[in-house]
């Protein structure tokens, strides 16, 4: 089956047409970027923190097998069951088996991008497990049957009336409720009984500490803590790249994470799980799903440093104006554009081009991933692997040839110099027509610079030479 590339441009166009949503989305995320800047300005050691975070992560990735083994040994000592999943299917099977063994039919979970990668809900639900997202934004997305549009604020593209409508449909609340406060309260009321009767709880893991066999989960709502401490079974699904060597390294990451993400100093809850609580069972599923392969990609392995703060999305002028869903992938925005092609090159071949490569993402990244340079490099890889649209490839091929031949090039330009009321033909290929949809064309001029120079410098120089 031939996969069609995601049409980001088309989805973004639709997003932009809805002015109210688009303007709020842009302003809201820009505000997060501003708040992040505010936190940076408070800390004189900000750049040192970034450099350390980057160095710790690079070291850990270069020593990942040893640290994973160390984590596993310590976690087992602490009484945690450790599982390894090569891909999403294996992950889902493992989780399904644990639940089945416990006769668990209801699972409450906090936000986990890995379970999104694995499409876990889609696997478990037909097998009779009711999965309930407990993060408010994630729950809204679940009820609306959409992917999270942002890795930190999953429903950031929605306005209050959208949420009111969704809640009215599922929670039978007032469809005209226009108070965020009251809607959040409805969610609390709806979630409590589900939490109290759940058979199992699931969390992700923001960090995994090899030295102690622990994992750390950061949330603002406390929903991960509820998911982990109320039912008697806690399953944590974690990507294998989430390791840090020492507990003392956490200082660097916790100081950067929420400041980069939301501009708040720390998430309201920073929870350290080192073993099962009394009377409970704890499982950790370590998920590869392409990560070990990515580690071998010379230009792209550092994308594994990502701590999923979303700062690159908040600062990205393209993301803010196209919305996370337009990327058609679990990971959206700049980080998504460099990770997604490792999952499926053809399907996500368009994403590295959904960027102006302006570089703001790289500057805000708390672990110093050179995101915009990786976007540039992905474009090359995709071109070499023939994943560019035919027309674009041809235009570039022809333009490249033309640019190597000054006489032909000049003829192409000069063809228009006779009557410069139109654009030069070489930029008027059909492919370039969209320019004029929301923009005027450049104004015609009387003379090119080339021609002016010939007339005003070469001729005068020649004359000077003659008179000398």
């Amino acid at each position, binding site marked *: 089956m031939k996969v069609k590339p995601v049409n980001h441009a088309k989805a973004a*166009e639709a997003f932009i047409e809805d002015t109210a949503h688009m303007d709020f989305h842009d302003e809201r995320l820009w505000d997060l970027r501003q708040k992040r800047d505010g936190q940076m300005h408070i800390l004189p050691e900000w750049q040192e923190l970034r450099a350390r975070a980057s160095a710790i992560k690079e070291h850990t990735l270069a020593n990942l097998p040893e640290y994973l083994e160390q984590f596993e040994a310590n976690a087992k000592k602490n009484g945690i069951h450790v599982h390894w999943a090569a891909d999403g299917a294996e992950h889902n099977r493992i989780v399904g088996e644990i639940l089945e063994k416990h006769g668990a039919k209801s699972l409450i979970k906090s936000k986990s991008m890995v379970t999104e990668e694995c499409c876990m809900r889609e696997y478990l639900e037909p097998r009779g497990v009711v999965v309930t997202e407990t993060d408010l934004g994630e729950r809204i997305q679940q009820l609306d049957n959409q992917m999270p549009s942002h890795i930190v604020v999953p429903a950031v593209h929605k306005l209050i009336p959208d949420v009111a409508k969704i809640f009215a449909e599922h929670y039978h609340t007032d469809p005209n409720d226009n108070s965020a406060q009251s809607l959040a309260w409805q969610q609390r009321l709806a979630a409590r009984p589900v939490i109290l009767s759940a058979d199992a709880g699931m969390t992700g893991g923001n960090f995994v500490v090899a030295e102690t066999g622990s994992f750390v989960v950061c949330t603002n709502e406390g929903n991960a803590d509820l998911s982990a401490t109320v039912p008697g079974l806690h399953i944590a699904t974690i990507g294998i790249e989430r390791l840090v060597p020492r507990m003392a390294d956490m200082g660097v990451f916790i100081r950067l994470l929420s400041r980069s993400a939301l501009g708040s100093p720390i998430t309201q809850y920073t929870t350290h799980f080192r073993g099962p609580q009394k009377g409970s069972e704890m499982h950790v599923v370590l998920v590869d799903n392409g990560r070990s392969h990515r580690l071998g990609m010379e230009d792209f392995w550092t994308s594994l440093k990502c701590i999923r703060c979303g700062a690159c999305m908040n600062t990205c002028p393209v993301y803010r104006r196209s919305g996370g869903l337009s990327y058609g992938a679990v990971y959206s925005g700049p980080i998504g554009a460099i990770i997604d092609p490792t999952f499926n090159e053809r399907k996500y071949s368009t994403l590295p*081009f959904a*960027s102006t490569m302006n*570089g703001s993402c790289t500057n805000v990244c708390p672990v110093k991933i050179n995101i915009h340079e990786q976007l540039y490099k992905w474009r090359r890889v995709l*071109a070499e692997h023939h994943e560019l649209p035919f027309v674009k490839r041809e235009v570039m091929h022809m333009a*490249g040839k033309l*640019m190597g*031949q000054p006489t032909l090039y000049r003829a192409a330009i000069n063809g228009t110099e006779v009557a410069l009321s139109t654009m030069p033909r070489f930029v008027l290929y059909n492919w370039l027509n969209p320019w004029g949809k929301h923009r*005027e064309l450049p104004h015609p001029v009387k003379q090119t610079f*080339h021609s002016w120079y010939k007339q005003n410098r070469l001729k005068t120089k020649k004359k000077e030479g003659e008179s000398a």
Partner: protein
Amino acid sequence: MKIGLFIPCYIDAFYPNAGIATLELLEKLGQDVEYPMNQTCCGQPMANSGCNKDAAAAEALFVKNFAKYDAIVMPSGSCTHHVRDNFDAIEQTDDVRHVRENTFELVEFLHDVLKVQDFPWAEFPHKVGLHNSCGTLRALRTASMSELGEPFFSKPMDLLGKVKGISFATPKRPDECCGFGGTFSVTEEAVSAKMGTDKVRDHHQAGAEYIVSADTSCMMHQQGCAERAGVPIRFIHIAEILNGARE
């Protein structure tokens, strides 16, 4: 010092005045400048599209045209960025290395190499909004970047500050990309135009009569957006102001 002047294709065809101002300004500053007539393009459009191999002919020609100069100066940040940082479709010979190491964007050349202290002929009695292209800002680093919280500096503003009568507008999002992005401007037409329109509105609301930039490509896009959206703002290349343009 013998200077080779590179004029990017879109300046050649649509904004010759920016090219003329660059040349005249360098001449006023006593420089020996030549414009090689066989020049075309630096290769950036092909390379940025991923088609690096297709950039080879342009890059080879560029080196052939400019290897003999002590410095290559161009009124374009993004072209300078390409030559300096990404110009690798061809074998890296001594000539190629020489060209890459001695290519300068106009502002950095005036500010860092010539260290110009005065533009006695320049007067621009208008309020301007400075647009730093992402190439000049985050690749060439001619100004401080808001994301890093570094102490403020701005080479283009240093130069413009020496112009009589000029004043500056302060947009809300000074280093937000304007959305040109080369082929992005057509493949992602809707986002590109929205970004450009937001950009010109931001400058206009800050009271700018003109948007001034070292990059004509950004301004070509912004001007198109401003005219379509009816935002009354004018555009001028920094070389024109420094060369003494009054409006």
